[in-house]
């Protein structure tokens, strides 16, 4: 088990314990036949991204075919889980009732280390919104929001190192 996985599992417990986003009314992902492996990997504490088995191009969000070479041969490869904050917003009211207790909160767009075009949206866990900056190095973590559903989330790398 990797360090990332251990931290991920520890956080799954703490998130559930604090009820930070464990509100059943918050929208949950509805996986489809292309995205299901992404969400299944997240429940195992793994960040996996589609990669063309022929030309090796990464792609996100998931889709049936490689737009670069046209191949349907797809691999779900585990990525390092490291990235940097590419952009972010701080959400203020009005929001869905499920998010009301959290405002103001940051939503970040993270550029993954593997490819500058691999950008994913998430939250920075346990970081006050005013501390979020573009360029912050971050590492993935996993938050179980309800049983069987985990969201890839993010922590600043320095903070993770201290916690570890």
């Amino acid at each position, binding site marked *: 088990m990797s360090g990332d996985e251990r931290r991920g599992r520890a956080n799954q417990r703490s998130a559930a314990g604090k009820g930070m986003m464990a509100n*059943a*009314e*918050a*929208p*949950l*992902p*509805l*996986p*489809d036949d292309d*995205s299901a492996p992404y969400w299944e990997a997240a429940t195992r504490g793994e960040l996996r991204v589609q990669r063309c088995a022929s030309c090796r191009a990464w792609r*996100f*969000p998931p889709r049936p075919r490689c*737009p670069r070479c046209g191949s349907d041969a797809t691999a779900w490869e585990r990525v390092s889980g490291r990235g940097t904050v*590419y*952009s*972010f*917003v*701080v*959400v*203020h*009211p*009005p*929001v*869905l009732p499920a*998010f009301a207790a*959290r405002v*103001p*909160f940051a*939503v970040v*767009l993270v550029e993954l280390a593997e490819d500058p*075009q*691999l*950008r*994913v*949206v*998430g*939250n920075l866990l346990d970081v006050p*919104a005013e501390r979020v900056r*573009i360029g912050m190095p971050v590492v993935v973590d996993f938050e179980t*929001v309800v049983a069987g559903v985990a*969201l890839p989330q993010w922590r600043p790398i320095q903070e993770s190192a201290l916690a570890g």
Partner: protein
Amino acid sequence: MRGVAAIAGIGHTEFAKNLGRSERRAAVEAISAALADAGLTAGDVDGLVRFDLEATSEVEIARSLGIPNLRFFAETGYGGGGGCATVGLAAMAIATGRASVVVCWRARNRGSGGRPWAATGNRVGGDAQFTAPYGLLRPVDQIAMIARRHMHEYGTTSAHFGAVAVACRKHASRNPHALMRDPITLEDHQNSRFVSEPLRKLDCCLESDGALAVVVTSAERARDLAQPAALLLAASQGTGPEHVVMANYHAPRFLETPSTCAARDLFAAAGVGPGDVDVAQIYDAFTPLVTLSLEEYGFCAAGEGGPFSAGGRLEWPDGELPVNTSGGGLSEAYVHGMNLVVEGVRQMRGTSTSQVQDAELCLVTSGAAVPTSALLLARA
């Protein structure tokens, strides 16, 4: 298709926070007004183009107005990206002989009808499965993500965005139909509360009810009708690679919106350049969309949209490029940009309340950051 079709009639309801009647009634009212403006009747209409989000169907409109034979009906997608596309489709139908008089309309009770994002369900599929669970689900959040990166890369400021809001409100203050007519200052903008940082309340369009319609016919027929025609010099639609609606999270160039594609085709088809444009109606659901569009439609270089938005450059009567001369979605009414099309026609007729002197060419754009569309209107 250059110059083949023209907008011969415009009509709208009043704009209100709560219009007090259904979108269907408002649609019928706006379409009737546009036909009367053109000097036509429902019996002349043989085509309708609607937004796919429109609540009222073509058959309901035809039944209410007594349209005897619809030869052409179609709809455009992507919400506010589809406004100019309705006119473009109508013009194609006319150019190919499929129809002779086509009405395009939008009726929306967005003020009284609630916020679409508030109806987000417990399970979210499609592209939003990767964003909504994180609390990124309002349009303003998606545009704020773009705005923040633009600020980071180019030094664009909140005050640059504020200048767009100030210009629109200044123009609205001269328009008796506009919902918000009290002028605002940059200070008012900076003092307005955050909705999605870096965007503030005054960066956001109005939440309003209203309906608007335009009548499209051949340029030849338009010459004999009641009003001076606004010639359709060109229309375009576009979207680029790796697009996700409302933010290019995964595109090679995050700050490049579908407008880049629509702009390139539009000017190529018209045989003119941005320097020939006298006045522009630029889709303004949020102020940064105007800033980005100024770059993408070529009025300034990439990254210079912020400074170009400021310093009164967008303000009537003396600015380099008066923008949203009726007040736009930020201050007249937010009806998915159909009011921008109508105002473009007024500028070409010479009847705007902030009329640009001797204006001969008007750009109208639909929603940037979604698959979009655009028009170039010319004085007949």
